[in-house]
């Protein structure tokens, strides 16, 4: 009986918290849509692009798995001060990214972050990547064995290095969920069926993919 009494308030609290989160996500979706964000970012998965033309028709990155991909503190900071992530304009290999992404007001950020973080992919396994201060195997693959650094900027002792056609990975340790990076390497076509980055399934082992994801998580 005593246990029942203590469990009941906890259950009520759990239900209330869950309802509040849903309410905030719903409010965030309303803000997202009233700002016209969905005109560039689709939020309903699964991905439907089948051809290069489909991919090139998109105006911005898909967000239907944003809650699995991003880290919330980074997302909240970025939404009020959005800086280019990809050095080149979306879908372009020649035009630099001009910036100028829409900015959210301070009161819009919380609900929109709630909404975006509610958009999740089932194939991302929480805790699949063990992040440590260093991952030398992942570093070796990233810089030497595979061409990752050819397309992605990354931090170095000097400042940064790397190519410009892929999203920059400077600060990726705070931006990306390492478990999503692993899921993306394992099943890239689930997230981006047509993309400029090569498929590494069958090229890298699962262990190598985990090491790369763990190395990317060290990027400041």
């Amino acid at each position, binding site marked *: 009986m005593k246990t029942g009494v203590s469990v009941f308030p906890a259950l009520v609290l759990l239900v209330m918290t869950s309802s509040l989160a849903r309410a905030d996500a719903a409010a965030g979706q309303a803000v997202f849509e009233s700002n016209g964000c969905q005109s560039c970012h689709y939020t309903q998965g699964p991905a439907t692009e089948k051809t*290069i033309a489909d991919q090139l028709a998109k105006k911005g990155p898909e967000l239907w798995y944003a809650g699995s991909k991003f880290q919330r503190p980074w997302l909240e900071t970025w939404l009020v001060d959005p800086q280019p992530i990809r*050095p080149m304009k979306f879908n372009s*290999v020649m035009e630099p990214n001009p910036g100028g992404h829409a900015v959210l007001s301070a009161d819009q950020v919380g609900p929109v972050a709630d909404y975006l973080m509610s958009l999740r992919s089932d194939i991302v396994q929480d805790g699949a990547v063990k992040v440590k201060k260093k991952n030398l195997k992942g570093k070796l693959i990233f810089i030497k*064995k595979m061409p990752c650094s050819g397309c992605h900027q990354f931090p170095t002792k000097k400042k940064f290095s*790397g*190519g410009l*056609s892929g999203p920059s990975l400077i600060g990726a340790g705070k931006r990306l969920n390492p478990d999503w990076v692993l899921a993306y390497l394992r099943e890239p076509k689930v997230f981006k069926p047509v993309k400029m980055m090569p*498929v590494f399934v069958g090229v890298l082992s699962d262990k190598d993919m985990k090491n790369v994801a763990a190395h990317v998580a060290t990027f400041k």
Partner: protein
Amino acid sequence: MTRLFLTTLLIVALSPAFTGAAQAADGEALFGFYCAQCHGTGGEGDGPNVTGDFPVDPRNFTETAEMEKISDADIRNVIIDGGPIADKSPMMPPWGKTLTNAEVEALVGYLRQLCNCTGKTS
């Protein structure tokens, strides 16, 4: 009548002009999407990834004399397995898990257009 139509369709579909045009169109689109990142939109080896940090010079496909030295099979192998298969840099990725065989062939055809050459026979 139907037989005549199908025969005509088959002849047109198999004619070099028809297949060449279809291949060129696909090859150009594929090149612009996948290869131009490093090789440049004109294939001159000057894509946006070729910054001062880039450790190698991506191949310039418009250099006819250099492209004549390699066969279609050489090109195909490097596209599929990446630079290391030809003792070249791993900066050239293996695209074999990304592209279909038809797409690889379309790219080989497009590179031959860029170099305006046929390459050595392997």
